[in-house]
């Protein structure tokens, strides 16, 4: 049974203070003109009015992460003899993400399939994931470019969250979704919230109405996108304005590709994992000079294909897009992935592919 707690607006700071004492607390904060998830302390200015510029994925899957360190030791007896020592780096502290949006939370569900639900789970991701609670704020309004309802989401979606927060006129309603969430709601700052539930429900419905719906996911979508694979002219047209930067992938809550590199200074160094973007030319560049995705339309095709065709093929129809709209909103040239998917549907309908 879900637990409901009400928090008057003026007590928000007190709650954040309390939560940040127990564990690492990340809250969207004003940073310049951007809003970024930052570790909370009294100097930060939380900003809940608009979705964070970057998704919270870096808290569980850091943009740069040390997998292990290595140190070369010289043998005192025989200086030519060098041995190497490895040290795994898996320090993780309990964490709360406060003020993610439902799409942000859903991003982690999309991560989970390749990262934890496999025969080779990723220990770095898994450990952080297990130790993180996500407190999600139901969207008080849609944002430019977002389209969560097209991909099966909702501005008040509970999937992937531990707590759902709804902003009401004079306070917030907190609803626990998981056990982790229930524990958080035991805090004495919360008042009884059940009388606010109806008000919250009305807010949710009103916002859902406002979200644009550029396309509808159908069972055939995966096949439709795939059927265009060899249609270069379709993809060239969709990609002609793309400038091949990584903004879309780095801002995407679901883009999970990465790079692994070694960085050494002196006799020691680290093997690090960093976010990488399939939109970059070098991403698939091979040592021989051959590049299977040398052209930008091939890369865009891979990005769209991965989200709407390859991933669903692998994971029982699940779409690897949460509709947060960041890639649309922040694209330097307004490439709109939802428009591309809609085009793909239209194209295949018109051409009977």
């Amino acid at each position: 049974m879900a637990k409901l707690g009400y928090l008057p607006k003026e007590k928000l700071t007190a709650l954040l203070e309390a939560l940040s004492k127990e564990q690492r607390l990340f809250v969207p904060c004003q940073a310049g003109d951007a809003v970024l998830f930052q570790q909370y302390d009294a100097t930060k200015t939380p900003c809940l009015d608009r979705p964070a510029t970057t998704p919270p994925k870096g808290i569980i899957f850091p943009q740069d992460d040390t997998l292990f360190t290595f140190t070369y030791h010289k043998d005192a007896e025989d200086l030519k003899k060098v041995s190497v020592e490895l040290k795994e780096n898996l320090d993780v502290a309990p964490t709360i993400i406060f003020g993610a949006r439902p799409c942000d939370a859903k991003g982690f569900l999309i991560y989970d399939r390749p990262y934890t639900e496999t025969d080779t789970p990723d220990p770095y991701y898994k450990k952080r994931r297990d130790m993180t609670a996500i407190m999600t704020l139901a969207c008080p309004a849609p944002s430019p470019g977002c389209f969560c309802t097209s991909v099966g989401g909702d501005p008040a979606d509970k999937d992937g969250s531990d707590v759902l927060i709804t902003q009401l006129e004079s306070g917030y309603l907190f609803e626990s979704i998981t056990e982790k969430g229930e524990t958080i709601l035991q805090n004495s700052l919360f008042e009884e919230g059940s009388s606010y539930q109806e008000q919250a429900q009305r807010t949710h419905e009103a916002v859902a109405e406002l979200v644009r719906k550029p396309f509808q996911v159908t069972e055939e979508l995966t096949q439709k996108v795939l059927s265009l694979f060899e249609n270069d002219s379709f993809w060239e047209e969709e990609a002609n304005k793309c400038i091949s930067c990584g903004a879309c992938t780095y801002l995407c809550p679901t883009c999970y590709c990465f790079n692994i590199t070694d960085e050494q200074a002196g006799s020691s160094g680290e093997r690090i994992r960093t976010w990488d973007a399939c939109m970059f030319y070098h991403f698939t560049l091979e040592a021989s000079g051959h590049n299977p995705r040398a052209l930008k339309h091939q890369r865009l095709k891979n990005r769209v294909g991965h989200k709407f065709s390859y991933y669903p093929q692998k994971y029982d129809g699940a779409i690897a897009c949460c509709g947060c709209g960041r890639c649309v909103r922040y694209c330097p040239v307004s490439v709109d992935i939802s428009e591309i998917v809609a085009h793909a549907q239209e194209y295949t309908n018109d051409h009977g592919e």
Partner: protein
Amino acid sequence: MTIERLKEIVHKVLPDVDVVIGYRQGFDALHATPFFITKPEEVDELIWGPLCVHNLAAYLPSLTKNKKIAVIVKGCDSRTVNQYLQENLINRENTVIIGIPCSGVISVKKVLKGLGDQPIEAVSGDGDKITVTTSQGDKALSLSEVSPDKCRTCQYPTPLIYDHLAGDPISPDKPAESVYDDVREFEKLSLGERWHYWETELSRCIRCYACRNACPMCICQDKCIAESRDPHWMTQRLNGTEKLMYHMIHALHLAGRCVECEECTRVCPVEIPVAKIKKKINMEMAELFGYKAGVGVEDTPPMFTFKVDEEKIEEHEL
């Protein structure tokens, strides 16, 4: 009307080129998007106005090698074309330049900031004002309030180079001597304050390389030393040192080449004033060598040449 004149020109040019690059409406009423026109029936979708913010000339180097391209350029964008010609980066034979005199564009970010980042349902322009409609109603913003920094000191409202001009030339009305006032203002800060400023601003960098890829003069982006392992200039780390190093690379590789289109600032998703870094170097180029990138086709970028006796460079004493 500029737009009618523009469509006329595009119709005239289209049969002789592979593509005309212009603007059309993007995903909402506030966002224009680059538009690659290949068929006459598409010309109707063409738009022109203060929402047309992108520097479309940036597409030229990759396309004019084997295609004939017509591109719509504003006054500021036209400096890009000149600089490409200086550096022999485009094939002039394959380029048709459709110039548009421009009295200023908006900063999409500034508009959204003024409106709390809501989806925009409609935008209408009227002289020096735009009215923006959201689900919360209308809001009027003065253009000067939401114009990007570059427009506030614009010296080139009319393109410097064009084959066709859609509209009557506009004379610059901003004082030339105040172009670098913001740089001078910033230099009044102490060294420590400046260091702290950049450390804070650049700490937001996510190394997405939007600033690099949108930059018309970053022409070696597929081989950028920010990502290369051989030579290994930088790590893939996300710390302050590497972020600063990346932006120093970007700025220094543009010394004497930056055409001040400020695309780097415009496209930064985390709102770093990237162009502000380059502006200082541009000011130096003007002061040391009397040079402004992309103003004349026949000029030589100052880092590509030298004088045996430099008038403005003095030996530094220790």
